[in-house]
């Protein structure tokens, strides 16, 4: 792969309701801020990828509404209707195919629609949609299968929520920085067993942007380039019943290929920090198993062992993760932005010391049907 780098990043603060900004306002702000961050002008950008979903936005071809706001007017622009990590993947492919610099911008407002009704629309209309499944209830089935398989306790999952809401106190962009205890999570309202309110992400509004550039533009930028060392995605079956929900095989495959591309043989030893997309607490340990950070069934023990906490061997979600802000689609791009900030040494109070190699992860579809894994580094 030719060298390509993340040269500029920007996020809005994530909030329950952004009353003063429409989609295009948020997108303009993060586009402008990402360019400023990179030390580039809109004239340096020759390709634009927007990330949005028509059903969430309540408009057809939802990318069109933000084209002007992200400098797309006279450029090659198209839209990814999926997680921001996949949008960034498309942006990278454009740079590898000859464009100099792609800006990838994602937006989402959970406050304006209905998350359960819209996520119910993920499911097959003939066999599944009329059952009323949505993102939360399908995730709860996965949590049940995973926890039953390995005898994982709800308290183990609650620790993820405690850790990530605590980490969010160091992230000025997070929506829900909180000091909570395992007992608080355990006594929070039952949503869909075994998931309780504090096992679940909030509804969020926000936008994020990232600029991916070739070596020529990276040299022109003012920030330390964050080089893309490995990236891969993989998808598994659509029907939940066809899959082994406790074994994220698509993630295993994506991680294996991203590691191979990046030359990583021992991920725990070679990766300094990871940002994974965990809108529900059980997802963090399950995805860490898929990423090969531990054996199947052992993900729930990593916090107790101190491995994934700040100061641990491999801190996971120093930002607070999606449990602390989940603008859907934007949330994966936020993971990649956080990974880039860690590599630049610009993550502020959430900075992991001497972080040089970072992993970012995002997924699409119910219970993580497809996953995208990124490895970025300060070294070319």
């Amino acid at each position, binding site marked *: 792969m030719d060298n390509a780098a993340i040269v500029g990043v920007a996020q809005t603060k994530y909030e329950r309701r952004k*009353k*003063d900004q429409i989609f295009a306002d948020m997108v303009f702000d993060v586009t402008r801020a990402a360019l400023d961050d990179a030390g580039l002008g809109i004239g340096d950008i020759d390709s634009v990828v927007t990330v949005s979903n028509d059903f969430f936005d*309540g408009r057809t071809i939802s990318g069109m509404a933000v084209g002007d706001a992200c400098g797309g007017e006279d450029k090659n622009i198209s839209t990814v209707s999926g997680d921001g990590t996949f949008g960034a993947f498309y942006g990278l492919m454009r740079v590898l195919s000859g464009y100099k610099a792609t800006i990838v911008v994602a937006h989402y407002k959970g406050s304006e629609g*209905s998350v*359960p*009704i819209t996520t*119910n629309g993920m499911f097959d*209309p*003939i*066999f*599944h*949609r*009329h*059952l*009323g*499944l*949505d993102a*939360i*209830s*399908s995730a*709860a*089935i*996965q*949590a*049940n*299968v995973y926890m*039953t398989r390995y005898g994982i306790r709800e308290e183990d999952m609650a620790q993820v929520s405690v850790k990530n809401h605590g980490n969010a106190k160091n992230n000025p962009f997070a929506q829900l920085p909180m000091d909570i205890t395992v007992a608080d999570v355990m006594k929070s*309202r*039952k*949503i*869909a*067993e*075994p*998931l309780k309110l504090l096992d679940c992400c909030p509804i969020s509004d926000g936008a994020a942007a990232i600029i991916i550039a070739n070596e020529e533009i990276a040299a022109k930028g003012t920030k330390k380039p964050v080089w893309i060392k490995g990236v891969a995605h993989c998808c598994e*079956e659509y*029907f*939940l*019943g*066809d899959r082994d*929900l406790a074994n994220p095989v698509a993630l295993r495959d994506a991680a294996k290929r991203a590691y191979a591309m990046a030359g990583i043989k021992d991920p725990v030893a070679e990766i300094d920090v990871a940002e994974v997309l965990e809108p529900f607490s059980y997802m963090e340990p399950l995805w860490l198993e898929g990423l090969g950070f531990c054996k199947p069934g052992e993900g729930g023990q990593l916090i107790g062992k101190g491995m994934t906490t700040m100061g641990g061997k491999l801190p996971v979600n120093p930002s607070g993760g999606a449990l602390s802000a989940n603008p859907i689609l934007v949330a994966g791009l936020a993971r990649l932005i956080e990974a880039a900030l860690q590599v630049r040494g610009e993550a502020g109070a959430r900075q992991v010391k001497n972080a040089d190699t970072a992993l970012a992860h995002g997924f699409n579809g119910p219970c993580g049907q497809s996953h995208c894994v990124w490895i970025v580094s300060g070294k070319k």
Partner: protein
Amino acid sequence: MAEWLKNVEPLTLKGQIAVPYTWWVGETGSRFLISLRDDQKILGTRCKACGTVYVPPRKNCGRCFVDIDEWVDVADEGVIEGYTIVHYAYPVQPVKPPFAYVLIKLDGTDVGFLHLIKNDLGRIKNGLRVKAKFKGERTGSILDIDSFELI
């Protein structure tokens, strides 16, 4: 946020997109749903290449990438492989919470079948056997199976 906006109620505009769709359920889906409606029988299909018995039936096997043309009768009983008891309500749910979603491995099949349990929620556990209860009035829908009940 601009100062002046803090002192007023920000405006919103209400909207609703209600687009009517008519989804053809296809040859395979039709046979499955007609069987539920007319015979109260659950049908699956078997892939000749890998032997997987799918329910709901599939017209082709994504794993082997071949057509499937063998139909099999599937039991109306099976084993719970995963579940959740739902405590929140929203308009698309066909029944008032609390109720359970279950993944059931019906006897003679190789994949999980998603459906509902409405009663005995406190007794639900993975590994227990359940049986389909059909509705009296059936229309050719996945909800012609009213729910599953613990045996």
